[in-house]
């Protein structure tokens, strides 16, 4: 079941990749945080993730959660985006044998989940080979 307010609340992150950054610690936060940590007083500045980055690690999910069963097998990656920030996302449009740690990727806007036949459509970010 989709949690509609929760989906809507995260839209700046899911649809536009907005996070924030502590200039003094050089740390990018995605999603954005209220503060850098209890030791750091610096005000966090808005930072939108770059849509380009590279793969740090990956897997191919064969046994998927219910809402993703029809897509299995699918690749998941952890990416470091250029300029900072990391995401966990599906890697699509790429044969599994071509996935390499370190390969460049680009964010693409895709449908992530459907709440069954009747519920809302939930969009977000996936990555494609860059």
């Amino acid at each position: 079941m989709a949690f509609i307010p929760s989906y809507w609340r995260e839209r700046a992150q899911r649809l536009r990749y907005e996070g924030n950054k502590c200039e003094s610690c050089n740390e990018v936060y995605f999603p954005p945080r209220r503060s850098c940590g209890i030791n750091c007083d610096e005000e966090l500045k808005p930072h939108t993730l770059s849509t380009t980055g590279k793969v740090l690690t990956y897997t191919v999910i064969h046994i998927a959660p219910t809402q993703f069963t029809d897509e299995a097998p699918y690749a998941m990656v952890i990416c470091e985006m250029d300029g900072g920030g990391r995401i966990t996302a599906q890697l699509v449009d790429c044969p599994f044998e071509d996935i390499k740690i370190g390969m460049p990727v680009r964010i693409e806007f895709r449908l992530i989940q459907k709440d069954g036949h009747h519920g809302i459509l939930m969009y977000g970010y996936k990555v494609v080979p860059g």
Partner: protein
Amino acid sequence: MRDVAVIGIGIQKWGELWDRSLRDIWVEAAQNAIKDAGVDHIDTMYVGAMSPGLFVGQEHLSSLCADYLGVTPVHATRTESACASGGMAMRCGFIEVASGMADIALVSGVEKMTDVDGGGATYALATAADGDYEVYNGVTFPGLYAMMAQDYMHRFGLTREELAAVPVKSHENGALNPHAQYPSRIKIETVINSVMIADPLRIMDCSPITDGAAAAILCPLEMAKDYAKGRPIIKVSGVGAATDTIALHSRKDLSVLNSVVVAAKRAYEMAGVGPDDVDFAEVHDCFSIAEVITTEDIGFFEKGTGGKAAAAGETALTGKRPVNTSGGLKSKGHPVGATGLGQIHELVTQLRGDAGKRQLKTAKRGLAQNMGGSGGSCVVHILEVV
């Protein structure tokens, strides 16, 4: 702070216990612990459970368990830290006894995972990860550990066959454990040809879905001799707990579980010992790669060598660093909230010399490492014979 001892342990055979309810399996384990300790009352109790709400639609275990054990109005609290819920229950009981606020503490864990179907269990377990930024995008628990495995294998050259040595060893031990869910031996070929779950992890790399409970009784060390009945007195000499980022993607190093490193360090410091002083360990092998990484992070092996060490037999019963003599989560089962106490059960069994066919020659000091999710939380206990 007073010193604390473990004077009783209780468990049952873990598995798919279709005809046993959550309260039923928990009460059995608790009563077994109480009987084993020989106490006639308890002053406080903690129940670790990850998600009874999602698995069986039941929260408020504090009341439910105290009621069905027949010990109301004793204080009770349910502790939660994903798969480290049980270990955290132990830690809370320890603190209450060490502080002097209670003398006899019942610490326990339980999980009843088979009332929901596979999809329901996967959904409940996934709440241990970052719901909005990991799970939303399609990752699963095996997927997260598989990503750790890909990073580890890429950097340290561990092969698929070498990684398979871990579940093979666990089943060797589990086959000797009367409480294990899957007490059967397996081969390397079985592991590497089993159904692919998330590349490179196959079903035989993954701990199962299990129903089970485990419990222990703690008391101040100076009272332990009143309950020893000739058995070795076992002190909880080290307790350490720590957190790490909830999402795997936020970690500094994908092959290091910093919550384990720090929790172990805190436990060693408190006990005044180091990894070389520990004779054996029960670690949290939710997936084969987790055992490889955690044995390194508790200091048994240098980073990058744990897998090869397991493949070379160093973690076997007869090896230099026996790990998971119980069979680990893989063979003995992983009722998530109960696992932490299941580890304590094995430690005490070995320290007392009661482990039968899987008894270690030298078992004076043992370490239990219990963690939640992809390593977001960890609690380590060191127990030793005094």
